[in-house]
C-alpha cells in the first residue's frame, strides 16, 4: 500500500533484524569515518563542503553522508544498537526531547568549548549549527511601494489583500506571529496563549494557505499566489538573487536555529565531538557556508569575514538584530510539541 505502512514496516523490520543479529555497534572500528546527516539538497552540500570536509581532510577522516534527517530512523538505530549516523542536524526541540529519552550522546564539555555560542542555543546533547530567521516575505510586484512591516499588518487582510502562506508545522512561528499581531507584547509571548492564537488565526482563516517545503514557500510568494509568506530568510534571499520578485521584511522577525547532535552508541562519537569542538571556532568555514547556503553562522565573529552585502541579509547583522521580535523558545516547544500538534491537527481537520 502507501508509504505509510512501508515506513512503519521498515522501522519494524530494521528493529527486528538488529534484535536477531544481537548486540552490535562496533562496526567500523579502527577506520576513521564520520557520517553526516542533514536535511539534504544544496544546503547540505554547502554545509558539508564549508565546514566538515576541510576539517576531515586535514585529519585524515573520511566523511560519509546520508539525507535527509529522519527522527524515526535515528530512534530505530539507537534502539537497535546499530548506529551509523554520527552528526545529525535536527530541530532544537527534538534535541531536547530525544536527549531526555536517552537517545543521544551528551556533549563532552571537556572536549567541546561552547563559550562562543549563545548559551540559550546550547543544550545537554546538542550545539547550534546554523541560525536563520522567520521573516515577512512579500512579493515586490504585488507590493511595490507599501508592504506589511509588522505581524499586525500581515494579519490585516483589508489593508493588504491576498493570501498568506504559513509553514504547516507547529514550530513554524505561526502561533507566535498570530499572538504578536493580536497585541501580545514580545517579552510576554511564552508560554503561548494557544486559544488566543487560534482565535486570531480563525479571523483570517480563508486567506491562509500552507506550505510544506522551502520550494513551495518560494513558489507561493514569487508567483503571487500568496504575496505574503512567513518565510525562511535564506530561501527568500536566494530567490531574490535569482531575480524573482521577492524580498524579506526584517522588522519583527523571529530568530531560529538548527542544532547538531550525536545519536547514542555511535562508534566514532569521539570524532564527532572533536568536529564539534573545531566547528565552533571555524570562522572561515561558517562564513563560507553563509555565502553558499544563505544560512547564518552561529559564531558571531564569523560575520566580520563576510561582505557587507551578504551580512545585511543575515538576522545577526547589527541592523537586522535590532528589529528582532523574539527568539523562538524551543524549550517551550519541547514541552508542548505533542499537545499543540494534536490541537493543530484538530484545527486543520475542522477547516
Amino acid at each position: 500500500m502507501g508509504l505509510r505502512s512501508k515506513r512503519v514496516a521498515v522501522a519494524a523490520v530494521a528493529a527486528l533484524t538488529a534484535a536477531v543479529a544481537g548486540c552490535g555497534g562496533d562496526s567500523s572500528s579502527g577506520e576513521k569515518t564520520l557520517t553526516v546527516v542533514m536535511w539534504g539538497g544544496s544546503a547540505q552540500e554547502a554545509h558539508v563542503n564549508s565546514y566538515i570536509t576541510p576539517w576531515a581532510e586535514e585529519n585524515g577522516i573520511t566523511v560519509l553522508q546520508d539525507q535527509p534527517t529522519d527522527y524515526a530512523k535515528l530512534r530505530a538505530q539507537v534502539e537497535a544498537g546499530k548506529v551509523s549516523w554520527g552528526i545529525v542536524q535536527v530541530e532544537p526541540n527534538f534535541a531536547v526531547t530525544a536527549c531526555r529519552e536517552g537517545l543521544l550522546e551528551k556533549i563532552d564539555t571537556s572536549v567541546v568549548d561552547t563559550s562562543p555560542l549563545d548559551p540559550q542555543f546550547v543544550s545537554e546533547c546538542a550545539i547550534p549549527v546554523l541560525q536563520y530567521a522567520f521573516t515577512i516575505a512579500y512579493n515586490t510586484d504585488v507590493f511595490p511601494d507599501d508592504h506589511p512591516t509588522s505581524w499586525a499588518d500581515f494579519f490585516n487582510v483589508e489593508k493588504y489583500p491576498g493570501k498568506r502562506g504559513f509553514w504547516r508545522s507547529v514550530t513554524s512561528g505561526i502561533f507566535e506571529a498570530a499572538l504578536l499581531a493580536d497585541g501580545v507584547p514580545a517579552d510576554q509571548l511564552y508560554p503561548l496563549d494557544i486559544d488566543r492564537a487560534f482565535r486570531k488565526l480563525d479571523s483570517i482563516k480563508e486567506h491562509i494557505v500552507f506550505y510544506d517545503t522551502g520550494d513551495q514557500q518560494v513558489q507561493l510568494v514569487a508567483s503571487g499566489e500568496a504575496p505574503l509568506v512567513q518565510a525562511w530568510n535564506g530561501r527568500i534571499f536566494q530567490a531574490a538573487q535569482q531575480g524573482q520578485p521577492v524580498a524579506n521584511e526584517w522588522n519583527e522577525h523571529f530568530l531560529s536555529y538548527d542544532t547538531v547532535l550525536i545519536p547514542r552508541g555511535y562508534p566514532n562519537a569521539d570524532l564527532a565531538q572533536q568536529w564539534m569542538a573545531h566547528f565552533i571556532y571555524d570562522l572561515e568555514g561558517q562564513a563560507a557556508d553563509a555565502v553558499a547556503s544563505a544560512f547564518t553562522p552561529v559564531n558571531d565573529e564569523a560575520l566580520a569575514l563576510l561582505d557587507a552585502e551578504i551580512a545585511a541579509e543575515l538576522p545577526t547583522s547589527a541592523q537586522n538584530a535590532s528589529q528582532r521580535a523574539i527568539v523562538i523558545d524551543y524549550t517551550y516547544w519541547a514541552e508542548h510539541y505533542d499537545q499543540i500538534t494534536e490541537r493543530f491537527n484538530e484545527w486543520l481537520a475542522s477547516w
Partner: protein
Amino acid sequence: MTVDTAPSVGSPMGARPAGRRPRITDGWGLLALPVAAYLLVVLIVPLVILLARSVTDPTLGIDHYRTIFASPTYTKVLLNTFVTAIAVTLVTLAIGFPYAYLMTLASGLWRNLLLVLVLVPFWTSLLVRSFALVLLLRDTGVVNETLQAIGLIESPIPLMRNFTGVLIGMVQVMLPFMVLPLYATMRSIDRRLLHAAEGLGARPAFAFWRIFVPLTKPGVLAGSLLVFIQSLGFYITPSLLGGPQNVMLGELIVQQVSNLLQWGFASALAVVLLAVTLLLLAIASRFVDIRRMFWREL
C-alpha cells in the same frame, strides 16, 4: 483401507493418471515457497509487530484505540480518507471505462498510442507530477490565467487546496490501475455476442448495455479494488493539492512516526485503517465474489 482414507485422487506415487492437473500436495507447492517466505518476512512479520506495538507501546492496553475513536479529529480524517478513496474510484471508473472501451475498438498504432498515454504516469515520479499539477491548477496557474486571459472568468476559480484538487491529482495517478484491468477484460469479450444480440433485434445501445457491460464486471471490480485500496494509503498528493481539511490518515500516521515518534499510536492508526478496509472488503464480498474477479483476469 484404514490407512488410506484420503480422497481417492490422492493415488499412490507413480500411478498418476495422465492429464491430471498438478496438485499442491504433489510437491508443486514448493514453487510457492519463495513467495510465501518473502511475504512472511516483509508483510506478515511487520504486521504482527505493528499489531503488537499498537497495544504495548508505551504501555500495555488499548488506550491508543480509545484515543482514536474518542477524538473527532481521527474519526473525521478516517472518514475523509474513505470518502476520498471512494470518490477517486468512482471518477476513475467513469473516465477509465470509455477509455478502455476505445482501446478495444482502436487498432494497431492507435491502440498503442492510447496505451502509452495511460502508462506515461508510471514513468514519472509522483512528486514531479504533483508539482506540475500545482503549476497548472493554482490561482496564478496556467489554467486560471488562460481562462482569465480569454475572458471566460473574472477571478480565478479554486482548483486546488480543496477536494477538486485532490480528485484531479489522485485520479490522474490511479487511471492506469483502472484502465489496464478493464482493457484486459474487455479485450477478452467475444464481440460476436453483440452481433448476435443485434441479429436478434436489439438496438446497438441496448446490446451494449445488456451484453457488453455485464461481461466487464470482473474488470470493473478488479480495477475498482486496486484503485480504492491504493487510494487509502495516499498522502503526498492530498497534501500538495488539497486544503487542510483534505488531510488523509496516511499523513497523520507519517506525522506520528517521523515527527512525534509515537510508534505505538502510529501502529494503532495503521491497524484501524487496515481493519476498516478489511471490513469494507468483507461487506463487498457478500455481494461480489472477490476471488473470482482476479481469477477471471488470469
